[in-house]
Each structure stands twice: as C-alpha cells, then as structure tokens.
C-alpha cells in the first residue's frame, strides 16, 4: 500500500470525525437539542479533565481494565485449552458437546444473579460475567479451528515420522491459530459489553458505573465522558488483540484468500 493512499485515508477519516464533532457541538449550542440532554463535546472534554485532575478517572479506568483483563485472560486460557482438547479428542467432545450447547445459550446477563448469589456483589461476580461472555466464542472457534486442520498436512507430518506431541504443537496449534484469534477478537467485543452490564449493577467504580451514576445524579457531561471512555477502552482492547493476532499469525501476511 503506497504512502499516498494511506495519507489520503487518514485525511478522509479526519474529515469525518471533525464534521461529526462540529455537528455535535453545534446542536446543543444552537439550542436545536436540549443541552441538558446532550452535552457538547467541549463540555464532555471538560468533564474528562475534571475527572482526571480529581483522580477519579484513573480509579474508574483502572477498575474497568482490571475486570475486563481478568475475565478475558481467564476466558482465553480456559477456552483455548478446553477447545484444543475438544477439537483433538473426539471422545472429549462427544461427552461435553450437549452440555456446552445448552450453556452457550445461557446469556451472561441472565446468569448474573446466580454469580452474585455465589460470588457476592464484589469483583468476583463481575469478572465471572465477563468471563462467561468471552469464553464461548473462544471455545467454539478453537474447536472448529482444530477440526479444520488440513488432513493432508497431518499426513505429511506423519510421513516424516512425527509423533502426536509434534503434530499437536507444531501442526495443529499453528493451523488452528487464525480461527482461535477470530474467537479471541470477538470475545474482546463481548467482554466490553459484559463489563458495562456488570458495572451498571451494584458497582462503585468503573466506567460503566461512572456512566450510569452520572445520569442518576444528572452530571450529563460526565455521563457522556463515561460512554466515550468505554468506547476508547474497547478500541484499545481491540487494537491490543489485533497486535497479538499479528504476532501469532505473521505467516499469513499478504496471504490472499484461496491464493
């Protein structure tokens, strides 16, 4: 991709963002929308700066990051390992599959009361709901990744005298990694949704709490600040996961589909 094309794209997307901000600023300022309901971006920025100087911003961001990372990392660790086992050992899959089909239909939000019952209203139940939401896409895409490994490649490795351990670590794992990362990226998005939900129910910190609480006490600019910051956290998480994906599937760079 040429530099020219990239800089044009940067220019185009900047135009979009600037136009959006201008419209957002103008609507409440000109009284077209009630400024009590829609704070202009300048006020939202002010709210963010206030939160930052009081130290609240750091507290909320830290709380949200901790919960989402804890839940997501747990989900990656357990989803990938269970998925590898289920994809590799047909027997494990046939035993667990009916259970999983049932549980994956059980919404994380529906289970929140159960988590609170068992784990209390503290951090654990919040991490549990995030874990639950992130776990399923990782598990399912890991299973299908392992099952879709090209049998000819396995055969080829066998013909070179590969044992099962070699097959698993050097063939199955890399072959399944693109599919595994598709699941992890999806889990990143689910994780943010679950985070917001968890923080809106019985929390005292976190960006989800900040958003809902600001609305309740009619601090509308901080409410928008919370929404904006949640989006930024989501973007950051997605960016981190994309980096991780690139790191593990570098060999696909420039690979055309079916090419």
């Amino acid at each position, binding site marked *: 991709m040429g530099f020219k094309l990239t800089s044009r794209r940067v220019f185009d997307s900047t135009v979009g963002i600037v136009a959006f901000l201008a419209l957002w600023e103008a609507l409440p300022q000109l009284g077209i929308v009630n400024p009590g309901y829609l704070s202009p971006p300048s006020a939202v920025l002010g709210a963010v700066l206030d939160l930052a100087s009081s130290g609240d911003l750091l507290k909320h961001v830290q709380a949200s990051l901790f919960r989402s990372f804890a839940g997501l990392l747990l989900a990656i660790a357990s989803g990938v390992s269970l998925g590898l086992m289920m994809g590799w050992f047909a027997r494990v899959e046939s035993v667990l599959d009916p259970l999983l089909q049932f549980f994956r239909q059980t919404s994380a939000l529906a289970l929140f009361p159960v988590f609170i019952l068992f784990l209390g209203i503290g951090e654990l139940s919040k991490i549990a709901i995030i874990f639950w939401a992130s776990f399923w896409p990782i598990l399912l895409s890991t299973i299908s990744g392992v099952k879709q490994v090209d049998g*000819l*490649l396995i*055969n*080829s*490795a*066998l*013909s*070179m*005298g*590969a044992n099962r351990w*070699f097959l698993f670590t*050097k*063939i199955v794992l*890399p*072959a399944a*990694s693109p599919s595994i990362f598709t699941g992890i990226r999806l889990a990143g998005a689910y994780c943010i949704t679950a985070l917001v939900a968890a923080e809106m129910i019985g929390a005292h910190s976190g960006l989800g709490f900040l958003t809902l609480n600001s609305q309740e006490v009619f601090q509308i600019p901080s409410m928008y600040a919370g929404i904006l910051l949640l989006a930024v956290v989501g973007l950051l998480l997605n960016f981190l996961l994309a980096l991780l994906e690139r790191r593990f*599937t570098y*060999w*696909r760079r*420039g*690979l*055309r589909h079916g*090419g």
Partner: protein
Amino acid sequence: MLNNSLTLENISKRFASRPGSTTQLQVLDNIQLDIAPGEFISIVGASGCGKSTLLRLILGLDEEYDGRILLNGKPIDGTGLERGIVFQDHRLFPWLNVEQNVAVALKNSPLSAKEKRDTVREHIELVGLQDFIDAYPHQISGGMAQRVAIARGLVNRPSVLLLDEPLGALDALTRARLQGELQNIWAKEKITMILVTHDVDEAVFLGDRVVVMQPNPGRIRRILDIDLPRPRNRSDSRFIALRDDVLSDFAELH
C-alpha cells in the same frame, strides 16, 4: 549408501470397502519387484490401481498388508529417515518459511544443530532456491513449492525417494524443467527413486524401468527396460517407440 536394494515380496493389500463393513476391496494383488540400489523406477497405471497405496506401504505409513518389503534385506518397520516422499500437492506448512519447511524433515535426525542448518542450506541450493530461503509458501510459485518439497524429501539423504505424481499439478514448461532437474539430482545423489506418474512421456524420460500397473485388483501388467543413454532425447526414434509401446498398454486398458 549404495547397497540399499529394495525388494517388494508378494505385496497384497485390502481395504474395507466401507468403514465397518466386512467386504473387502482388493487394491494390490501380489506385487513383486526387485529394485536395485540407485535405480530409477517409474510406475504408470490407470487411476485407482493402487499406486499411491503402494508408496504408502513402502513409506511405512500403513503396516496392514500381506507380503514383505525389504530394504537392504531387512523388513521395514514404520517410517524411517532412509525413505523420503514427495506428494503432488507440495504439503508445505504455511506457517514455516522455506528453510524451516525443509528443516522439519530433520526433526528425528541425529545431526547436530549446525549440521542440520548446513544440510538444509545445501539442499535448498540443490533445488536452486537459495534466494527464497526466508519466503513463506504463499509467496512462491507452485513449481518452487514443489522444489521445496523435493528438497525436504531429500534432506535426510534417504536411500529411497518416493515421488507420487510430484509434477502432476505443474504447467508443461515448469514440468519439463523439473523433470530435467530431477534427473540431475538423481544422477548426483545416486539414490533409488520410485516415481508414480500419469505422464508416460515423463515415465520413459526418467525411468531405468517403467512398471505398468492395471486395476481391479491392482497388479503389475508389464515391466519395460528403458535402455537409452541419459539425458534422453524425446525426439529420438527409440524413445518414441518405447513411449508408444507403454501407451498401447493404456489403449488396451481403456
């Protein structure tokens, strides 16, 4: 290295015609073949007559068959470093570069890390890909990928190299060039090669002997000696006569 004769003694192979079914499909029937060390054997025959199956047995991937396969007088036992294979689809691992793909074949080899590196490089040079050592499979052409597969098949310095339609997926030009290269590699390495091909011209061009197989059940129909000096000239009248002779077998079969 040179006294590695390969003997196929009364090889018969049956497959269950459907998984779990008791009726069996006889795929190979009493294959007998003595292959001298360093000999180039071409195998031709209709689709489904068991050529790939025979190579699988020689490779040691499938141990359920009747008869004996002797390498240097001893029955083979599973896969082994002294037997390499190249398939029609190169089967390179997409996540490994050219060098790593060739090196994979050395994982059971007793060589030291440095010796492994050197022999991998040597074999990549042998197939003329030294400039693509870091390339990934999707970055090279089909012909180049097939060369990598050949280097990988040779890197353990096997005494027998099995080739299952290795050039079958390539365009005519690349194919002719790789036939020449294969012949040079064979002459240089002095190893036994067994080439399965659908291309009678290729079989005659490369083989010391051409084994013609026929199906249902798969068996040897005829073995032709190709007593022509190398490198062979495709427009030589004796070459054409031998090629037509093999082709006539096919005409009868179809």
